[in-house]
């Protein structure tokens, strides 16, 4: 099978509002289940991790990207190909340190928070889109790269933009690779 053949012949589209409302219902239910914001953030990240480990295969099959040679190339691919493919937005990339292993993705428009105006009272440290951090972390881990992905700035918390920070850590050795639960 040629590598450039499309994975699916038809493109199934679903309504964006349905997806945004589903995500909102997920976060609202987690907020009802767990009192502490850290717990909600942790479980969103865990769920995202599960999605990311599976999504990477679909992404690689559909996008046919070349092998990357640097962390900045990887971050560019995440921003320009992956985000565009799955969320329809293209965040801008900025490098945060001189050793070129810390990057940030700046999202000026986030479709997931379209209907949320502000975080509810008592939930001021909730990272509403923490699922995205987990997805990026899980996907990178499946290509043997460990990274720390967190929200540095969040419009819902009052900052001017939404910024996701990716810090690439040491590369995982293949022999010692163990799937985290």
């Amino acid at each position, binding site marked *: 099978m040629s590598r450039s053949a499309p994975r699916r012949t038809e493109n199934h589209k679903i309504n964006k509002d349905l997806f945004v409302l589903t995500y*909102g219902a997920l976060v*609202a239910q987690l907020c009802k289940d767990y009192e502490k914001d850290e717990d909600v953030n942790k479980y969103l990240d865990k769920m995202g991790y599960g999605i990311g480990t599976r999504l990477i295969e679909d992404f690689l099959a559909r996008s046919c990207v070349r092998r990357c040679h640097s962390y900045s190339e990887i971050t560019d691919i995440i921003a320009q190909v992956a985000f565009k493919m799955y969320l329809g937005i293209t965040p801008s990339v900025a490098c945060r340190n001189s050793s070129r292993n810390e990057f940030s993705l700046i999202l000026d428009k986030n479709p997931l928070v379209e*209907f*949320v*105006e502000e*975080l*509810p009272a008592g939930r001021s440290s909730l990272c509403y889109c923490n699922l995205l951090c987990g997805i990026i972390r899980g996907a990178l881990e499946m290509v043997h790269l460990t990274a720390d992905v967190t929200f540095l700035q969040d419009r819902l918390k009052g900052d001017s933009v939404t910024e996701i920070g990716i810090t690439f850590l040491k590369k995982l050795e293949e022999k010692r690779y163990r799937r985290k639960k």
Partner: protein
Amino acid sequence: MAVCVAVIAKENYPLYIRSVPTESELKFHYMVHTSLDVVDEKISAMGKALVDQRELYLGLLYPTEDYKVYGYVTNSKVKFVMVVDSSNTALRDNEIRSMFRKLHNSYTDVMCNPFYNPGDRIQSRAFDSMVTTMMIQVC
């Protein structure tokens, strides 16, 4: 220019009520309350005739010497009531309809907020600012 805007839930309690600050705000609250009877009358009258073609906009509910009260009901039986100044004769039916349409759109956005529970009071900033623009000027 609206002087009072109210959103009433299906069970007939207010989800949102705001009026232009005057000495007798209670008077507006009372007018909205009494207009609910007229709304129910209109819904039941239309309901028997043509259920399919029932329009959301109810039109002028009742006029008083100073004010006119307009109503609008959604398919989920949430009612919007608007009180406007009678002296403002330039206000036409089309403008009132478009004001109600804007209210309905903002209300839909409030409902889509995952942290809003249906039946709670509406405390959205976007909704407040939209109502403020309706009170300051005609849309």
